[in-house]
């Protein structure tokens, strides 16, 4: 039959029960809006986090030991990378710098009259403090009693702000060090991108002389400093090649290979790898939450099916009349299916912008950039229409099979 006429008839029967149709559509709207909201908000968070990882050192290759039975990015903090490893990796093609990183135990740190319980200092090399991250001052020199603080440590840890040139005192069980603050940084080069999103106060000291974790190097046969993690800074565009070269060095020649405990894999990771892992985790969470939202959509579908069944029963006589004047089973089926589809599509049409608006609001509230999830949004609309079709199928089939004689007798 004439498709325009079908739409007119279907729309008319929807309009003739305004409240009922509105409530049914609201069910679908809620379902679709929640799917779109969660999918879009998830995509926004993912884009934000992955974006911030991407910014922090696309040329960095992170070298660490990772328990082989863990899929995630938990790292084994054993000091296994020796000074020999550091200098050998430094000689590989395309490597600009190797920044080792380790922790130094302390009891507390004092500035002026204020003593704060900072129990881990970060030991690294001067190259970690690049001009990119320096807010004030300069990097420390090897062998000097100097330190660099991050902004959290300088601005909000002690009673008074610490500035370049001030002295701080680090208290340890065996000694206490008086260090001159020579620089204030916003993070350091070679920091793991997953080091935490909150600004923890950090105190950086030169590994020489303050880092005292020492192992016997299997290749050099002398005691050497050993670090739990290295960051290799590659020349631009050489990151992949460097990653491969470092991997192969780790597996075949490194000291770490022999020092690593059983069950720990040595891995070279780019920030892209980390981004991918985090993005995997976020999208798993997003999928899970979106899956819950799909339940709302199913409830909406049941609402449509329910109202369509009521409608078929109510209009039994009308179906009989239509059949008496020549409607085929197919025409009747088409009309009811169209009506259900219009309800579903209406829900999708309202639900999509509503979901986008809510997720935009959520993104503003959570202070992340707004990113669209076009696939999920398109899917939500498609599902809305499909929900109408599926929910309408059985009622429409029932309508089509109504016996016209019975229907005309129906009061």
């Amino acid at each position, binding site marked *: 039959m004439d498709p*325009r*006429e079908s739409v007119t008839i279907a729309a008319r029967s929807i309009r003739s029960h305004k409240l009922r149709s509105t409530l049914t559509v609201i069910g679908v709207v809620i379902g679709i809006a929640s799917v779109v909201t969660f999918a879009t908000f998830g995509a926004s968070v993912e884009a934000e986090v992955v974006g911030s990882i991407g910014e922090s050192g696309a040329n960095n290759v992170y070298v660490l030991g990772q328990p082989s039975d863990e899929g995630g990015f938990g790292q084994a903090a054993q000091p296994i990378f020796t000074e020999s490893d550091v200098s050998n990796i430094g000689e590989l093609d395309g490597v600009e710098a190797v920044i080792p990183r380790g922790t130094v135990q302390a009891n507390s740190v004092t500035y002026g009259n204020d003593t704060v319980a900072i129990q881990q200092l970060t030991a690294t090399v001067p190259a970690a403090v690049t001009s990119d991250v320096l807010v004030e001052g300069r990097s420390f020199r090897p062998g000097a009693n100097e330190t660099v603080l991050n902004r959290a440590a300088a601005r909000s840890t002690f009673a008074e702000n610490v500035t370049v040139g001030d002295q701080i005192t680090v208290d340890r069980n065996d000694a206490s060090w008086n260090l001159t603050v020579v620089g204030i940084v916003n993070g350091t080069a070679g920091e793991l991108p997953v080091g935490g999103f909150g600004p923890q106060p950090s105190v950086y000291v030169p590994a020489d002389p303050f880092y005292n974790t020492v192992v016997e190097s299997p290749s050099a046969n002398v005691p050497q400093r050993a670090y739990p993690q290295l960051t290799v800074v590659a020349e631009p565009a050489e990151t992949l090649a460097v990653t491969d070269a470092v991997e192969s060095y780790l597996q075949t020649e490194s000291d770490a290979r022999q020092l690593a405990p059983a069950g720990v894999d040595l891995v070279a990771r780019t920030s892209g790898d980390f981004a991918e892992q985090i993005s995997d985790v976020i999208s798993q969470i997003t999928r899970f939450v979106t899956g819950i939202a799909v339940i709302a959509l199913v409830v909406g579908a049941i609402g449509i099916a329910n109202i369509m069944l009521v409608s078929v029963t109510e209009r039994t006589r009308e179906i009989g*009349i*239509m*059949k*008496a*004047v*020549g409607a*085929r089973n*197919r025409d009747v089926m088409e009309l009811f299916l169209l009506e259900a589809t219009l309800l579903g599509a209406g829900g999708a049409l309202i639900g999509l912008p509503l979901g986008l608006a809510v997720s935009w609001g959520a993104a503003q509230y959570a202070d992340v950039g707004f990113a669209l999830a076009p696939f999920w949004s398109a899917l939500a609309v498609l599902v809305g229409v499909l929900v109408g079709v599926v929910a309408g199928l059985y009622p429409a089939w029932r309508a089509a099979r109504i016996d016209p004689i019975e229907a005309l007798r129906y009061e």
Partner: protein
Amino acid sequence: MAQTQSESVVDLVDVRKTYEMGGIVEALAGVSLSLSDGSYTAVMGPSGSGKSTLLNLIGGLDTPTEGTVTVGGRDLSTATETELAAVRGSEVGFVFQTFNLMPRLTAVENVAMPLVFDGWDRAERRERARDLLGDVGLGDRLDHRPTELSGGQRQRVAIARALAPSPQIILADEPTGNVDTETGERIMGLLEDLHAAGNTIMLVTHERRIAEHAERIAHVRDGVLERVEEVER
């Protein structure tokens, strides 16, 4: 036989219809009847005699258990559901006791409805519906809904609807049963006009006074055609 068939619009040959309603009910027990082109036949009988079943079979609303029903040269006993729908839509026009108009549609839309299923385009449908409503005297009620019309007006809308696809035969089932006597006479006058214009009409009623408007009366009792009586003018 071949000659009568060429003139007849409807042929029923030894038609039986049984229903299962907690036991087998025989609604028609072997009825043979022909309606020739342009004839006006009334079917009379008490309720339960099988007269409505007869009408439903001719109208393609139902199929016979045995025997053949031929309408416009087409055998309905073997027709598919889609073919039956086509017969209902274009070969026959129903007029019911309870009017059976679509409550949410206007008079024009009701009259145009059979044409929707017959594949007419919108403008042609409306034009045809307007013409027909004018013919039955409702030219000023085109956009009224059934609830805004009197019983007689509703029945005239229903008659216009039955005429819309230019059917071979008009089947009227107690068309005056739900209107007062005076209105009933006007409806019967309208059917007579249609007959005079060459339409084939079959009317089902239990009232002799109404049946006498036809050319002949077929008396049905207990599923059997008892006799066919010519009405004297």
